[in-house]
């Protein structure tokens, strides 16, 4: 149940995620090496526009990518179609975005 637009949205979001995933993993490994505490980590991320943009774009890409992927599974394995399928996709995307952006605000707002 993918047309060209959804296909391209999923591929482009994957393209965005590749460097972000690598960056995220690298940061995680780096952050635990020297025993950085939560306070120290938040001290670096809060108020940082760079980290806000990094994880903000990550959340958008994940929301788009996962919602379209789950749409395909819901159609092929669950038999959903039509408007129900569209609503499910938008619902999943909105939920992921809401949860993710909350986390981004928590670590990057001053």
């Amino acid at each position, binding site marked *: *149940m*993918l*047309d*060209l637009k959804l*296909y*391209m949205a999923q591929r482009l979001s994957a393209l965005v995620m590749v460097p972000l995933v690598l960056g995220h993993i690298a940061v995680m490994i780096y952050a635990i090496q020297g025993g950085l505490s939560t306070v120290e980590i938040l001290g670096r991320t809060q108020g940082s526009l760079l980290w806000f943009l990094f994880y903000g774009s990550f959340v958008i890409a994940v929301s788009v990518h996962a919602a379209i992927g789950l749409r395909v599974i819901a*159609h092929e394995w669950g038999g959903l179609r039509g408007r129900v399928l569209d609503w499910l996709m938008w619902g999943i995307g909105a939920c992921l975005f809401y949860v993710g952006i909350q986390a981004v605000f928590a670590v990057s707002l001053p």
Partner: protein
Amino acid sequence: MTTTPDTLRVTVQRGTASALRRETFDVPAYENQTVLDVVTWIQQMADPTLSYRFACRVGMCGSCAMMVNGVPRWTCRTHVKKVAADGELDIAPLRNLPVIKDLAADMDPFFDKWVAAEARHHPSAGRADGFDPVTPQEPARAEADLGIECINCGICYAACDTVAGNPDYLGPAALQRAWTLLNDSRDADRDGILTAVSGKGGCHNCHSMGSCAQYCPNELNPMRAIAGLKRETVRAAWGRKRDA
């Protein structure tokens, strides 16, 4: 060295879609025997009401494809000794298609999708015009040549798990033909083909699982063709001109 058993135990799916059943027949086994020979023996010697479909018997017409031990095969060129499991065969109509009766599947959805994919010739020249030369070395022609030996047997369609999960999906055969036409200098409706394969059931639904290429009896690779369609549709959407 194993000896050939005297008889094969053959289970055949019978009936129409509303009342399917399985019947078992004991069929004489021979050293050289195709699955189509077995089906024909059952109809001629055991049960003349058995319905099945075949024509050429030499792998050209594409009409005798069936599920043999769960795998789609062209029965006229499938040797029993290569596919029988302990002297047993399970024969059913092609998967992913409605059953008409017994082993005859309704091919209408399969061919309707060829039309829906614009997998038909769109003339670029009139009667008075000269022929467009076909140059085998030209890259687009070489790409088209990879897919033109399709015999419309429906095996790739039956093998495709995406078709099984998504009945709207146009399927490997129709998309491969659309791809060959897209690469054919004699076809005039490039935009029409790209639009037709970009809809809800279009090429972008393919998960590249490769069952089509795995089971194609002519060893074609529809998955490659579909990847080509994905590439060309994206390229067209970005507004880039084709340089091939």
